């Protein structure tokens, strides 16, 4: 007999694939101070990190940064902001890179490197925690507002 836990898990999976990402513990999406965009739709954000879109809404090329798969902030970003399991992103990026059908985001070491790279580059997008951003000088990164629709 299949256990009750199995069904619970199955229901969880089905629900998880339907629910919209919650705002609770999510990461903040940050961009280089030079980037003119201030608001992105959730759809747009997903397209960017799924490597489906290679440019900002104004047409300038975009450069995408992430932290490693096991990083807690990356996991939060993946589940809460994008609404996908981190392994989906890894599979997508690996398939792109190793079958010649696309590219992957650039992997950074940790959150402080993320903030440093985003604040000093021109077209970059990445993410950071609220705490880390609140300790920064005003204007050193561009915190993007993500619209649900």
């Amino acid at each position, binding site marked *: 007999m299949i256990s009750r836990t199995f069904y619970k*898990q199955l229901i969880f999976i089905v629900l998880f694939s339907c629910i919209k990402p919650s705002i609770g513990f999510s990461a903040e999406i940050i961009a280089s101070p030079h980037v003119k965009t201030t608001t992105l739709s959730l759809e747009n954000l997903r397209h960017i990190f799924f490597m489906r879109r290679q440019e900002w809404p104004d047409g300038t090329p975009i450069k995408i940064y992430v932290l490693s798969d096991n990083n807690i902030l990356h996991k939060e970003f993946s589940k809460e902001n994008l609404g996908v399991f981190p392994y989906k992103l890894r*599979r997508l990026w690996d398939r792109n*890179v190793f079958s010649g059908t696309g590219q992957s985001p650039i992997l950074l070491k940790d959150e402080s490197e993320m903030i440093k790279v985003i604040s000093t580059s021109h077209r970059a997008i990445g993410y950071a925690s609220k705490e880390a951003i609140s300790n920064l000088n005003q204007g050193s990164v561009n915190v993007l507002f993500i619209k649900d629709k």
Partner: protein
Amino acid sequence: MFKGILLLLTLYMSHSHASSVFDSFQTHGFINQGYFISSSNNVYGKSSTGNGSLGLTEIGLNASIRPFSQLSFAIQGIYRKAGALNNDVRLDFALLDWTFYNTGDIQAGIRLGRVKNPIGFFNETRDMPFTRPSIYLPHGIYYERLRNIYLSADGAQFYFNQSTDIGEFDLKISAGQPLDDIKELEIAFFSFDAPGSLEPEDAYLAKLEYENKSGATRLALSYVDIDLSYDPGTHDLFDDGDITIKMLILSAQQRIDDLTLTGAYLRQKSVVSNFGPFFPNSTPISESYYLQGQYQLTPTLQVGLRYDVAYLSKDDKDGASYSALTGKPKHSAFTKDSMLSLNWIPHNQWMLRAEYHRINGTSFLSYADNPMPNASTKNWDLFALQLSYRF
């Protein structure tokens, strides 16, 4: 083709800001070393004698660049040493990718050049150790003797991706000329090294893949149609015959928390005609399936179980007719493999894999490493280790 890409790149760079072109430049790669020891029968070198074999080494390096948002180039070279089978560098893919339609939700485009063949979940990245589910891919679906035909083809691929409320749909349709080193298939087909040579003509492939929004559910349907022709040698018994291989593969994967279940079913029809009186026309139907379960014990350690079955002919599962026709042992016509595996990823760039296989049958073994099929053993054990690094 490749020269053309280089020329285009050079032209482009000389007419624009070099910094913005190189901004999108990426390079990645992997290094992989395997170790194999078996009770009998050889896998990737002389695994059944002495201390086993270190006969699998794979090194891959790729680069990609996207000078315009609709246009990209990608290239990958792979060095592969695999027993007595391979010891060479090959151009794995080299392509120009033009996304002529992109709304974010929908992409449509075309890839030209040497393109990976879309077959099942794993074929397009089968040599990249981190993206395959085991050291040895399931024997029937990713049949080793068809390996060179499977890898990539020189031609074109049309693609269409759509993101919907229930997940992503991904369609690829390819046409091209597969790589032509298919000695293993030729020997498997004729049962000996015939004087002429079997050459691939055209390959047509299509794959439709679905993945739900979270990524936990995946389904794929692949169709492959490959034509081969025989070019007879001098004093050849056979005429210039043709083989058409058509296969259909259904693949499915479901993740439930820390458990991943993956399976596939293959049905393959081979139409053999015009080889003359010494090789009558026939249409054998091959069948294969596997089911693999992987469980994440800790964030870095995974344990796996797999049962994998392959029959060269579904109407001759015990190999009796095959044996009567070819003089080879019955067990050359099938493989049933039970696998237990451990997968450890202590760091996102390093992976160590260990696998134990209990195997009944030898239908997937290479002739290069096993030149005498009659000396093969029906029931055997294989242990494999693999250390991989990626960047």
